[in-house]
């Protein structure tokens, strides 16, 4: 491992996931420096969620190595899980428990000190105070997303992995959440890796962008580098270039065949 990699919070080398004949992630390598906010971009089925699941140890890789905060996540994930936060629209919290009960259970699981104060602070930060006594299942999808974010931030994680963190939020709430994440990152120096389809969000938050297509890492760099390289003005245009390049290639192959 090189010197630059040891100072990285996340180091991924040759990561692959195969299901029978399908390759969901194909030899992906990247590193995210400590304190950076990195965006993981790609169309549906590009391998973003699969990559995040492997980083967390929810999914075992077919090949490759993952190191987070210097720990091998395949062999020693429990040494580091208490320092990670995760939120995803594909996972949920118990519906019948109230918001307060859910946060209390997770605060205990993460060994959060001054649990009540931490929950109170996060409830204020995410505008959840009025919902604390309500069953989680009775909340709107936007409210649930905020609870999941609060859950992810309970242990004040050093690394935050987020799958579409603002997907179901209205523009006002989404903007406030982004502002909170920027403040949190600056205050704690946390490393953030977020998968998103929202290009404006990525442009605003991320210093580094990873572009996935059909399970492969096809481009990476800062948003400015990507814009310059592709000769575009927005990340959305870059995203469309890459996505449609795949279609053009496929059409060309079909014609040749």
């Amino acid at each position, binding site marked *: 491992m090189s010197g630059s990699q040891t100072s990285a919070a996340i180091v991924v080398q040759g990561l692959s996931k195969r*299901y029978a004949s399908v390759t969901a992630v194909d030899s992906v390598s990247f590193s995210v420096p400590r304190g950076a906010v990195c965006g993981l971009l790609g169309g549906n089925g590009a391998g973003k*969620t*699969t990559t995040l*699941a492997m980083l*967390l*140890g*929810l*999914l*075992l890789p077919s090949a490759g190595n993952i190191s987070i905060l210097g720990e091998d996540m395949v062999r020693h994930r*429990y040494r580091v*899980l*208490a320092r*990670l936060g*995760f939120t*995803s629209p*594909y*996972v*949920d*919290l*118990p*519906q*019948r*428990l*109230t918001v307060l*009960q859910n946060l*209390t*259970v*997770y605060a*205990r*699981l*993460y*060994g959060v000190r001054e649990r009540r104060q931490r929950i109170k602070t996060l409830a204020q930060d995410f505008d959840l105070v009025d919902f604390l006594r309500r*069953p989680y299942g009775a909340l709107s999808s936007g409210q649930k997303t905020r609870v999941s974010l609060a*859950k992810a931030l309970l242990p004040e994680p050093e690394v935050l992995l987020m799958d579409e963190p603002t997907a179901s939020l209205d523009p006002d709430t989404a903007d406030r959440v982004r502002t909170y994440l920027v403040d949190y990152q600056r205050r704690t120096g946390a490393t953030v890796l977020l998968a998103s389809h929202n290009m404006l969000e990525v442009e605003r938050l991320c210093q580094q962008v990873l572009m996935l297509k059909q399970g492969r890492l096809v481009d990476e760099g800062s948003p400015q580098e990507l814009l310059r390289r592709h000769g575009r003005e927005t990340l959305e245009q870059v995203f469309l270039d890459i996505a449609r390049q795949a279609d053009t290639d496929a059409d060309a192959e079909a014609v040749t065949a």
Partner: protein
Amino acid sequence: MNMAARVYAMVLRYLYLMRSSWPRLVELAYWPTMQMILWGFLNQFLVEQSDWVAQAAGMFIAAVLLWDVLFRAQLGVSLVFFEEMYSRNLGYLFVSPLRPYELVSALLLISCLRTLIGVGTAALLAIVFYHYSIFDMGLALLAFFVNLMVMGWAIGLVVVAMTLRFGLGAEGLAWAVIFAVAPVSGVYYPIATLPEWLQSVAWALPASHVFEGMREVLIHGVFSSSMFMHAVLLNVLYLAMGGGLFMVAFRAARQRGLLLHVGE
């Protein structure tokens, strides 16, 4: 942060769930009580008709209460785990510092509590309705209770492993498996009643040793240490197998990505 704190967090999570719905709490005691009432009347009838039953008043009531220990202990593990699957919560649980064996420990503890509430209520009501106290068995009752509970846990872990491996389509196993075990456990009749080839199957189950031991206590007033030890040894084996199967299924779920996508 230690293991006990995380196990307690999960137990708390299941206590919150129990508290959130009084019909669920009532249901815990309802079925064991209904079973006890039904077999209580049958017991009263058969005491007058059968010399064998007349040897020990309340034999069927004791049998049905102890059978419910096994049944409720199994359901206490499997149904509670299904809650995590219904709520699609496994992905968050297993990116927290919670270890799989800590989740299992919490499931076993909450299963014990649910069984005590359910069967304990029925046992107390048996005193009221039939003037029969299973507690008269003394320490033997504790030995029977623990053995049946551990066997219920082992079966529950197998059901959980199957559900983790094959998805919620396999949840019916929670009911099916226990009813497959019932005929060969000698709950209401001696193992000698079974065909010879089935008797060897029966003796491979801890429950058979417990129910034969129960009849020894009720009819002859003797606690069979041999039956007890057989049950204990078999339970150690079955619990290890249940735990092992759970870990194999958990690893398979991590290989197939089921922890992230499992749900209704």
